[in-house]
């Protein structure tokens, strides 16, 4: 296959894309539907990092790329950037979401209760090999018993009340006009230190693997902050819009959202000490990323963070589209730059450009 030196680059591109399609099969509506319905966590991850909540399009992106996550995220982002911004939704308040899972590691029980919800956390990680032999495995049906409360208080409310957490909350954005005035990372490039809104946006879109890597390095002790998971929530949230003429608030649909809060003692540096709070949230359900991200949120705010946990370092290196794109760009031809480097190497090997001058000095 022609790469660069050969003529006919455009033909080569078409052929290589054709080969890819032959190897990976046709796109069918059935496959796309199957991905959307049966791989919700994968779809969530693509939507979260692609920062576009559109399960059908995320499933299409996955099908079209054969499940290549970075390519799928890029497809969604590139589509997103062509879409006009018609409205700003009202802020989602955590207390008003429909919570399906809500746990805290900080206390045995918390106001509102621990809700384990749907999770594989305590499942045996055993392959269900029998599924390969039968058409389907019927899971036992669960009976509905106690209706869950429609909302849960925040653990941080209690902690603020008793003086464990720093007193005042920052002013909360309430109207769609205030939302529209927030610095938007897709419209204004981040210049560090970034406004908090941009930091949280960047974390929400960040690469799960990258956030996990940096977060885990902190957990293992590189600038470690000794965090405790205050609250992890998986929920459905109404996307509420204000009617442009009547002002009436209506729901445009529900999205899956998740959030994590961690607290850590002593890291604020204040005396007497108080708890510091780290927070992260994203579209879709992605607990691993958010726990790591909320820890990094605290680590980034330290007066002297570990170099790998400074805000610029974390946010600029966990951007999935930029990081993956630049990594694969090294596949592009670099023979001009390499030739320029070789010229230097050859000259240095031959004694270097400085030689005559040195001889003058030493003569």
């Amino acid at each position, binding site marked *: 296959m022609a790469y660069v030196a050969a003529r006919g680059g455009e033909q080569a591109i078409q052929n290589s894309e054709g080969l890819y399609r032959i190897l990976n099969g046709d796109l069918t509506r059935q496959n796309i539907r199957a991905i959307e319905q049966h791989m919700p966590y994968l779809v969530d991850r693509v939507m979260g990092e692609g920062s576009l909540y559109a399960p059908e399009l995320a499933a299409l992106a996955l099908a079209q790329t054969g499940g290549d996550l970075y390519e799928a995220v890029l497809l969604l982002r590139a589509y997103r950037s062509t879409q006009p911004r018609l409205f700003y939704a009202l802020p989602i308040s955590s207390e008003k979401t429909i919570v399906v899972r809500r746990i805290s590691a900080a206390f045995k029980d918390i106001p509102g209760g621990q809700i384990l919800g749907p999770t594989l956390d305590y499942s045996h990680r055993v392959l269900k090999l029998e599924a390969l032999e039968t058409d389907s495995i019927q899971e036992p049906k669960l009976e509905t018993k106690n209706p869950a409360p429609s909302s849960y208080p925040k653990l941080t409310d209690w902690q603020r009340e008793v003086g464990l957490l720093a007193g005042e909350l920052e002013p909360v954005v309430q109207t769609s006009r205030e939302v529209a005035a927030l610095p938007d990372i897709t419209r204004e490039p981040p*210049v560090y230190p970034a406004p908090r809104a941009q930091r949280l946006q960047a974390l929400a879109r960040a690469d799960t693997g990258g956030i996990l890597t940096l977060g885990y390095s902190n957990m293992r002790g590189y600038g470690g902050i000794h965090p405790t998971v205050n609250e992890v929530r998986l929920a459905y949230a109404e996307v509420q819009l204000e009617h442009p003429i009547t002002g009436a608030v209506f729901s445009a649909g529900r999205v899956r959202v998740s959030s994590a809060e961690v607290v850590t003692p002593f890291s604020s540096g204040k005396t007497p000490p108080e708890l510091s709070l780290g927070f992260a949230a994203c579209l879709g359900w992605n607990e691993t990323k958010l726990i790591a991200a909320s820890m990094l949120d605290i680590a980034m705010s330290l007066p002297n963070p570990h170099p790998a946990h400074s805000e610029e370092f974390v946010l600029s290196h966990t951007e999935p589209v930029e990081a993956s794109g630049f990594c694969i760009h090294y596949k592009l031809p670099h023979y001009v730059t390499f030739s320029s480097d070789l*010229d230097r190497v050859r000259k240095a090997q031959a004694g270097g*450009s400085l030689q005559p001058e040195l001889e003058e000095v030493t003569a």
Partner: protein
Amino acid sequence: MKLEELAFARQDYAYAFLDEFAKRELRRKILKAIAIPGYQVPYASREVPMARGWGTGGLQVSLALIGQSDTVKVIDQGDDDSVNAANLRRFIARMTGVKTTTDTLAASLIQSRHRIPEEMLNERQVLVLQVPMPEILSSVQPSYALAREMHSDGDYALLWLGLYEDLVKYREVSYGADYPVLVNGRYVMAPSPIPRFDTPKLHQAAHLTLLSAGREKRLYAVPPYTNVYPLEFEDVPFQIEDQRGWVDASTGATGKFMSEIPQDGGSSSYQLSDTGLKQKLERQMTGEQVEIGATYFDDDTNFYIAGFLKGSS
């Protein structure tokens, strides 16, 4: 008159792909960049249907500038037919319908990765360079936030120190391509990874050069007729690549930047890196009437501004 006669036909994408708000932002940032030569202007940088690092910055600038009467040339490593150049050209043509060319003289806008054409550009042409790393200070200060402060202070001591340390250690500067240049006496700038051979072409150039890094969200400019000097010591002058004796295998051309092609048995053959020029020279050899423009370097690698290059190559 009917409404449908006034309205444009329905399109899947806007003209030149980017929405008008994105184009407006880019044009404003480009104007700012032209007003402050060499200064890196942050811009939002939309995602486009190419991977980051594959020319998305150059592409956004091109898309924001291309009008329907433009003629576009896209090169990568000097080559019009390189797969990524072909891909970008295909995209630009598909989204704008403009004419494309491989002839430097026929192009009104040239998007390039890693090269400036050999034929001299004129005042009516715009060169858009794709930039991987816009921050020239990143080799000495990887934090963009701190590097920005150093630019504000005009603090380039670490770059000079790096050059000095190279000379002490290797008796040779280690910068290959992307050699740091001082623009308009104020900002030190990464000229993008063009070879040192192309660096002097930026000095007092007739054309406008726009440099854009989509991934790092920075764009900057060298306006026409602006001073661009490579960093050099008085006693250790800046040197372009030494390609003396390199002759293009098919046309016999010399004094232009060459690609080295390793041959069996340890030898090398050479090809003109500028394939647009190479094709014209080949057509000329068949007796065809071809217009070839003046070049920045003559056949003996003499730069057109006498005395600008103090070091012999």
